[in-house]
């Protein structure tokens, strides 16, 4: 049975998946780095709480969108690195498209 990722009750959660997948596009990152990347790339606007981040990561992993493996961090500590999968790429493309359409629509409404 193929299960589509179920629609999340709030926008933020869906967006978080999008942001995580996007930040993993450039290469494997550990959880802290993902949070940092999102924080920095958003010009320090978005803050990802660990309370949201890790459940989202585990869920994406279970969905097969990302895989995890242990590796050494930049300061030589053991850290869990997440890597985007093919399925994740596809999911990212879909979500990006949805997001673009949505934000574009909102923007157009606000422009009038």
């Amino acid at each position, binding site marked *: 049975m193929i299960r589509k990722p179920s629609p999340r009750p709030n926008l933020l959660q869906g967006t978080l998946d999008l942001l995580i997948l996007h930040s993993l596009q450039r290469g494997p990152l*550990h*959880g*802290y780095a993902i949070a*940092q990347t999102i924080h920095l790339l958003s010009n320090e606007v978005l803050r990802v709480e*660990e309370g949201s981040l*890790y*459940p989202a990561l*585990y869920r994406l992993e279970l969905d097969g969108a990302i895989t995890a493996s242990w590796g050494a961090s930049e300061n030589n500590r053991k850290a*869990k690195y997440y890597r985007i999968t093919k399925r994740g790429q596809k999911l990212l493309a879909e979500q990006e498209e949805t997001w673009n359409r949505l934000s574009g629509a909102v923007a157009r409404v606000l422009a009038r």
Partner: protein
Amino acid sequence: MIIRRVLLKLSRRRRLEEEMKAELAFHRDMAREHANPIGLGHLSGIEESARDLWRFNLVEDFWRDVVYALRSLGRSPGFAAIAVMTLALGIGANTAMFTLMHRIMLASLPVEEPGELIEVLGTRGNGPPGVAFSYAALQDLRRGTQTCSSILGFSSVTFHALIDGNPMERLSAEFVTGDYFSALGVSALRGRPLMPEDDRVGDGTAVAMISHSLWQGRFGGAADTIGKNIVLENVPYTIVGVAPAGFGGVEVGRQTDVWVPLESERLIRKPSRTTSTATKWLQIIGRLKPEATIEQATAELRVLYSKSIVENDIPEALSGPRVDPSFIERMKSWSLILAPAGNGLSRTRQQYEQPLAVLMGIVGVLLLIACTNVAHLLFARARTREKEIAMRLSLGAGRSRLIRQLLTESLVLVAAGGLLAIFVAYLLTRHVTAFLTNSLVLNVAPNPATLGFTAAVSIVAAILFGLMPALRGTSIDFMTQLKGGTPGSGSTRNHYWSSGLIVGQVALLLVLILGAGLFLRTLHNLNSIDLGFDRSNVLLAFVDPFGTSHSPETMMTLTAQLLERIEALPGVRSASMTRFAPISGGSGSNPEVRVLRDGADPVLVRGAWLNNVGPRYFATLGVPLIAGREFDDRDSAKAPPVAIINKTFAERYFGNASPIGKAVYLRGMPSEIVGLVGDSKYSEIRETVEPTVYGPIYQQFGVPVQLVIRTDRNPEAIAAAVRVEAQSLIGKTVSVRERTLEDHIEATIVQERLVTRLAALFGALALLLAVIGLYGVVSSSVARRTKEIGIRIALGFNGRSAVSMVIREVFLLVGAGIVVGLPLAIVITRSMDKLLYGLTPDDPLNVLTAAAALLISALAAAWIPARRASRVDPMVALRNE
């Protein structure tokens, strides 16, 4: 995806927890190093939600759903009880019919490689295939075959038996060829089976194999049964073996009690049937060699059979006293066909095939109706739970989760219904087998096949009735609901669904009721056939002196005395006797009967029946005496032979002239016709009356005799007195079987009665279910429209208009159902044509009655809700908002 998740969860759950702790620790360390304010959040919260994600929650959720379903069903026990009972009836009826069908049509015989067994059937011209062959034909097939590893002959008989010198009920027995058990692959449970060496007449002793049930019932399962003697028709047999439980021969529905070697028939019957090819008395089955096909065997056996006819049958016929050249010519065209026999012989299957198919269809429809009813109930329940469901949806419950929960509820219902159904099926099959007890012996205990069927039907039922309400029930707009809509206000679509279900249900119901009506009318027609005699208040007593040592002459005197004593009993009007009771399936003979007409050669009377009856026989039965006299004591064995003929005989062979004083020739002997009686049915109730000749019983006396006793009260009341008289006069060991003539006749249409009874029972059940369903739908429709009705009443609509509004709605639904159902019913009932008597499937009166019955039932169902609608208080209804 699901599988992947489950595997991940199972294999990695513990490790994942540890990894999570390490990962979170790393995260916090990093944050601290960077002096970063991110994080330091709610560790426990993360763990909690992560664990939720990882848990192997299918099983756990399922259990939680089951418990939830039980609790929620427990809160509405009325709903649960009705739903479970409805399902139990629907599924149980199906299981019961399937059990019968399985036993009769599908189950393999308990023998080795049943697929290799074939049955040999004789064909003569266009008639239905016959099952009986002569001894010579059997031997020729046995000797000549190359395609069959063995060919077996057997003949079913009923034996008088003595065990330890005590007479017992007659046993159902089979003469079998010596290789019967070895070829079937049936071994003995105790002792040894019959063997080819047993199948010869040596010094006049013979051996027998007994059934498991006879062993248990008559010998108490004792180990020393082997070697005991059993006397069958005055011939002593030594018991050598006990057949395994469950083996009762190769004929479905017949339990053979004892098997004896075919050759021992010569010891019992004098003259033996083995000596004449004209006597066709053996059934033949064969076992194909693994490499042979049924076509090859057919071709081979046909050649052997034709040769056997040319070598045996035709010479024998030519040597007879009268040779009929056209008959000799026809004999040359006799042939045979083979039928697979792995499920038992075809006769029982053919006999029950159509009634079973019809009944299976009926219970299928009943189940559909039961399912729609439970779907109604679930819809209604979903309506009352809309708020609860809306609340849970809005709190973030996934729709799939809710659907799963609702389906679990259906599953719990159907599981309970299915378990109860096994019990219902048991009662039903027991009822049916008790009904058929004289014609069919079946083991209907639940077995893996029937239980599997029950489970399959239950699952299909659960999907049928459960899925739709679950889907519809959860697709509600929870905002509207939560904004305080009245219960049911958002469920117009559900109402359409219910209406659609009602229309479908009525259509199905019409099919059932039409069918049941056809069967009821058929039975009525059968029961009101003019038999030519009065069947009420007549007792038949079958007196069998086996076990007493009286000669036939003594028995004749004793029987005459017995009749006198019986006539003296209070309540007895008259008593007589006969060789063959009326409607005994044509027992008696089709003898050679000729009549002399004006000097010409005697003319053969075609299809004549011959019976021997005692004095006052016709008066006792109520057959009118048209001319002449009945037999009386003058017509003794020494008196000149006399005869009485029926009206059909007289009209066909004597025209308008009086037959009295003329002669009929019975086997060449002239008998003077002394009486003319009215026509009466002879062999079975549907026949057209054939010419019938009666002779005096004293001139052709034989045992056992049938006493015919007319009473002026319930004939069963004198049965005990008759038995006492018979025992005191003839001897303690005389066997007397009494039954009323009505029972005797009813037993000949047992299959029709059974089908009618079940069809009527299931039809009534279906009607009841449909009325309940309709009541539920109309009630909830009225509840839904309380406001509308309130407004209408406030605007001057009176109570009566409210009633007619509801009734109109019901009529519309039922009318639509009838319109949809009628063509369906006509097509379906057309297939039952062969089972009907005296009417056609599209009988207009029957159609009208069925439609009227439906409308009246619908009215009854709608009445209470309609009254409720008329009593709507506009103030209350409007304040509700």
